[in-house]
């Protein structure tokens, strides 16, 4: 009985701390986000480091390189997962077509640069615009009719899977039609024409507040990788800022709380749905274009990152937007650590094991609120 009481008190104090943290993060979202990112990144510095020491250390497997790889990967995942988490946290919808939207964004960026011969600077906005519009389209086709008749959430899951399969295979046909091949690259000379993406940059020393993080690194970084990380951070902060301070962000929070109440307050709920899906799709599109420039663009590029993104938001907490970034860092860390230890063939297994275990241990995720059991 006493232990029961103790654990109750302990839980109450944990809840108290969490509530205070929540108030603080809501008041200073940008500071909180930067803190979360820095903490996650620092954590990420040591995990691959330990993994790479000392048995597996080679010329191509050193902690500094792993750290950079991890950052790039975390950036990629964050960009993708932010949109995922946005739609789930505001609208309560799990949009499994998010991977297809990501692919569609990449497709649009590629089409603009390779087929329409426009400068590469147009690729990112084009990808974001296409992603956003297709996001809205997915909402109209797959979610709106079900919302109208109050269908169960699992139906929405099914319809989004249907939309995803449809989009991916339609894209396959379009890829064949437009580029005569399912898998394509951005034209290399155009990608390299952007100064920020040019070639590789040797890094010798990285210092943060006088603390030497990296010394005498004989590894070169693709600026693309860094770009991805930076864009992800900018997006996260932008998103948090919009939600916390803008008028539409406030409306979004009301909708997240209860769409019916929002309606009564005179908020245009359908507009909020459209805006949310547009933002979510635009983020996915940006991730698609950037990753597509770095690697390749193809109809199935969204399926792998789709499942990883799902893992990311489950880990971070499906209702939490900063959670998407935290989850991205955890997954990127796990993957890089696995690779560094020499088990690159378990790279995928680690992700899904993390997904599975997280759901069993703490289904609401690291930053999520406990799931309410409605009687």
């Amino acid at each position: 009985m006493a232990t029961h009481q103790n654990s109750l008190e302990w839980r109450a104090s944990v809840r108290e701390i969490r509530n205070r943290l929540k108030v603080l993060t809501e008041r200073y979202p940008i500071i909180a986000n930067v803190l979360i990112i820095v903490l996650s990144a620092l954590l990420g510095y040591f995990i691959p480091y330990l993994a790479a020491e000392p048995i597996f250390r080679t010329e191509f497997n050193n902690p500094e390189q792993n750290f950079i790889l991890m950052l790039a990967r975390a950036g990629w995942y964050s960009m993708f997962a932010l949109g995922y988490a946005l739609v789930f946290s505001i609208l309560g919808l799990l949009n499994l077509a998010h991977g297809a939207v990501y692919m569609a964004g990449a497709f649009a960026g590629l089409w603009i640069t390779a087929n329409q011969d426009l400068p590469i600077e147009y690729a990112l906005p084009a990808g974001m615009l296409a992603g956003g519009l297709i996001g809205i389209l997915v909402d109209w086709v797959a979610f709106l009719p079900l919302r109208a008749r109050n269908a169960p959430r699992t139906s929405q899951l099914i319809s989004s899977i249907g939309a995803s399969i449809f989009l991916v295979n339609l894209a396959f046909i379009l890829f064949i039609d437009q580029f005569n091949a399912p898998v394509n690259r951005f034209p290399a000379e155009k990608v390299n024409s952007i100064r920020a993406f040019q070639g590789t940059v040797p890094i010798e020393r990285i210092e943060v507040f006088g603390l030497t993080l990296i010394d005498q690194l004989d590894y070169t970084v693709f600026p693309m990788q860094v770009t991805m990380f930076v864009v992800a951070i900018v997006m996260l902060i932008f998103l948090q800022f919009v939600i916390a301070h803008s008028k539409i962000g406030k409306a979004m929070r009301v909708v997240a709380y209860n769409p019916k109440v929002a309606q009564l307050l005179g908020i245009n709920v359908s507009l909020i749905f459209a805006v949310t899906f547009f933002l979510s799709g635009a983020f996915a599109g940006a991730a698609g274009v950037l990753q597509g420039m770095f690697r390749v663009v193809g109809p199935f590029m969204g399926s792998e990152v789709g499942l990883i993104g799902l893992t990311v938001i489950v880990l971070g907490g499906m209702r939490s937007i900063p959670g998407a970034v935290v989850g991205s860092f955890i997954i990127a860390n796990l993957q890089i650590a696995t690779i560094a230890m020499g088990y690159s063939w378990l790279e995928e297994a680690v992700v899904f094991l993390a997904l599975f275990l997280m759901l069993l241990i703490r289904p609401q995720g690291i930053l999520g609120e406990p799931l309410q059991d409605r009687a």
Partner: protein
Amino acid sequence: MLELREVTKNYGGLRSLDSVNLHAEAEMITGLIGPNGAGKTTMINCISGLDHPTSGEIIFDGHSIERTPAHRITGYGLARTYQNIRLFNQMSVLENLIVAQHSDGRATLVEALFFLPSHLREYRQQRERAFELLERFHLMNVKDAPAGSLPYGDQRRLEMARALATNPKMILLDEPTAGMNPIETHELGEHILQMKEDGLTILVIEHDMSLISQVCDEVYVLNFGVIIANDTVENIKQNEEVIVAYLGRED
């Protein structure tokens, strides 16, 4: 029959039940009244096992049930109805009554697969009992209709019949008169008194006083999660605190 000792229930930071003590005498009708949001439904959920109290004890018929899963509590002989009717809408009226006899059945899937006599006998018994209840609650003519398609009054009666089909010793009625006119309410009161005659213990949760006056032997008053009074119906009606709690609500 049923006893609650210092039952407390917290939701997040909110305390919806605060050290509630309650005693429902066997073969009596106990009433629980209180304004909306007083914690009545939380309490009935805790008793019937859909929810569990944060602390305190609930004893039913000699069993300590505050952590027991709902299906086992039903097995001990406690049945309930719901404030907003919750029938199995897509099942027929008869099936609703047969499925409620689950605890009394023993037949496994294997017995059903091979048409073993034990399965057939059990099904026949359950049907017979269901027919008795249909007769008693005047539902015979709609026995094959989907429960969801019945008119409101029939649904209320079916829900009570279904609770009785679980073969209970005690029954919890959660706002049984919600949405009924005075005549229907009175008729329902007769049903409840009949159940008492049959030896059932009853706990009625209401905020309508007319049913309470008609049937209850003893009344508890719950307000903001605290029991503020416990007495006979006549005395409760005179109680200052109760009147304030109710007048505070009325607008």
